């Protein structure tokens, strides 16, 4: 048997996964973006106020899109099946992570542009800050989901952390999610880094998990 020269057809794998494993979360994420303007003003906002819909609402798309990355293979039979194939599941997870994070970033950017069109004082930095929040919350969900092997449990910590941020406010320091409302941007760097770290940890643990069984 001859095997594919391109041994890992990334695009094809991404395409099929997008079609079969992502539509529900994408739909919920889009819905979230559409509902946001009904809950909070998204027009004529100065820079700090404009951070609010981005940080407090749109960033939640990260939770919606990233938390269920491992969900399809949490069915053990499917996991056994795809794991016995030549292409490693870890790479499939990486592909899903990349496109999910990409979609989250894209939605946030589109939302930011739409705010700009409604005369808000938004800047690319605001969008980046919201993306950092999204990655942080989403990777927190990914990590829990990997550790517990259960996606639903994965949704808990990010939502709880979100609630903590509403409750505790700036006391959370470098990991405070809503800092741009106060005009402070340094926390975003930490959130972004912590997000990447948790994402890597989640992917790594998921890879290990199977072998440790």
């Amino acid at each position: 048997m001859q095997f594919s020269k391109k041994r890992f057809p990334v695009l094809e794998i991404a395409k099929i996964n997008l079609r079969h494993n992502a539509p529900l979360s994408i739909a919920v994420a889009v819905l979230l973006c559409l509902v946001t303007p009904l809950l909070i003003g998204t027009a004529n906002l100065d820079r700090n106020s404009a951070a609010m819909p981005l940080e407090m609402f749109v960033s939640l798309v990260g939770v919606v899109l990233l938390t269920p990355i491992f969900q399809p293979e949490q069915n053990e039979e499917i996991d056994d099946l795809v794991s016995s194939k030549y292409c490693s599941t870890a790479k499939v997870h990486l592909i899903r992570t990349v496109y999910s994070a990409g979609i989250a970033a894209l939605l946030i950017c589109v939302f930011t542009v739409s705010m700009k069109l409604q005369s808000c004082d938004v800047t690319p930095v605001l969008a980046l800050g919201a993306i950092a929040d999204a990655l942080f919350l989403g990777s927190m969900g990914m990590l829990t989901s990997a550790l517990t092997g259960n996606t639903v449990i994965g949704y808990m910590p990010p939502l709880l952390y979100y609630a903590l941020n509403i409750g505790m406010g700036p006391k959370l320091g470098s990991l405070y999610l809503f800092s741009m409302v106060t005009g402070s941007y340094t926390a975003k760097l930490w959130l972004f880094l912590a997000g990447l770290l948790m994402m890597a940890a989640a992917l790594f643990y998921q890879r290990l998990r199977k072998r440790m069984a």
Partner: protein
Amino acid sequence: MLLLQEIKKIVKSIPYMIFVAAVVIGLFSQGVFRFQDDLLEEPQPGGSYGYKHEEIAEQIMPAALRDLLTEFSNNNYTTYPIGFIKHVKLSESKQEKMAEILSGITGNDKDRILQEAAGITPGASGNYTFQIGGDGMQQDGNGGFTIGSDEKQQNSPEKMAFAVRDDMDYARFKELMGQADDLLGGGSNYAVDSLIGYGTVPLTYEEAKERYDLAISSDKVTGGYARLFSDYAGVMVLSILPVFLAVILGMKDRRVKMEALIYTKKISAAKLTFIRYLALVIAAMLPVILISYISNMMVWSSYPGIQLDYLAPLKYDFGWLLPSVMISTAIGMFLTELTGTPIAVAVQGLWWMFDVNLGIKSVSSGYALLRLAPRHNAGADSLFRTQDYLDHFGDLVQNRLLMAGIALALILLTILIYESKRKGKFGGNAIFKKAVSSIRDRKNKSQA
């Protein structure tokens, strides 16, 4: 006993441990273990006792008008339709209507008001200090939000100098301001209920004393703290977390493929579903009851010689918090049974987020009929605001009974679904499955 078994099963599960951890962290962050820092003090004559809002027409009318004129001239209005800031910019025709309202209030000609407004260059927005709900709304250290609209910032250096016409009657003023609020889409400071924010008077010693005495006699002190605890616990944890328990444990049955097995066991669906529901509710309440007592006991020693109500936490746990747990658990069980998916997490999550954000505006007291988590936060002006609570007690009871009622109705529905699944009439997407299998059968037959 089955109930005990089910409770044990839940309590030993990993999701439950995460649940408990989340409850503890969530409540700790709200400061429920530091109630001894906030003590009720008997007012002494000659001190300052804080402020209260009152409908004083002479204060309210000029202050509200001043704000409205400023916002009008900038055509930039700040509103809080559901608790979040919204900056409203009116269309030309609506600005004209606003000018008419202003004309009604000031007695000046509409065109003159418009002209004057056009002559003023919109002032650059001043430095906003951070306030989570926008200007005027401040977050206190305990996660509550207070609105103080008495010290509004002036956004524009120049002011339009119009005064309320001399013969303006307060009722008419309120009516006009109400129209302005409607024009803005609601949620502005000019709403009929919000105007009172413009009238502030200092509390007298007698009033402060009366308030204190009421807290002692009606709340027996501990009741006030239990109420504060319920406020935090309801909004932070118990309106959202129980849904996770219900969904995760409901899905687990599917995951381990026990369904078929369970379905054939000879126990009535009604009984099994109800026992599971009961077990989930009890399991979720256990840590809450415990923590409510720990939190309450912190202050017991600080009130020597005063008769305390040692059962207060229990009363509030069952009266205030139990219905929240009931409804979120019921939604979790119902939607999981109905769809076989964790969609309940999204549904409850959205309702909760909506409710929390609604809470930002009405954190001091929110007892609306459809509130998921009623709010009664002490805020700055008094520790317990016992009178306020007593005034709204009827609303609270209605809300809580309604939530508990809906919860039980949902469980009833869950039982019906479960029952019909057992009989094989219903299963996830039963109709679809049936259709598929009937087509398949037909094909197979035609092949044969």
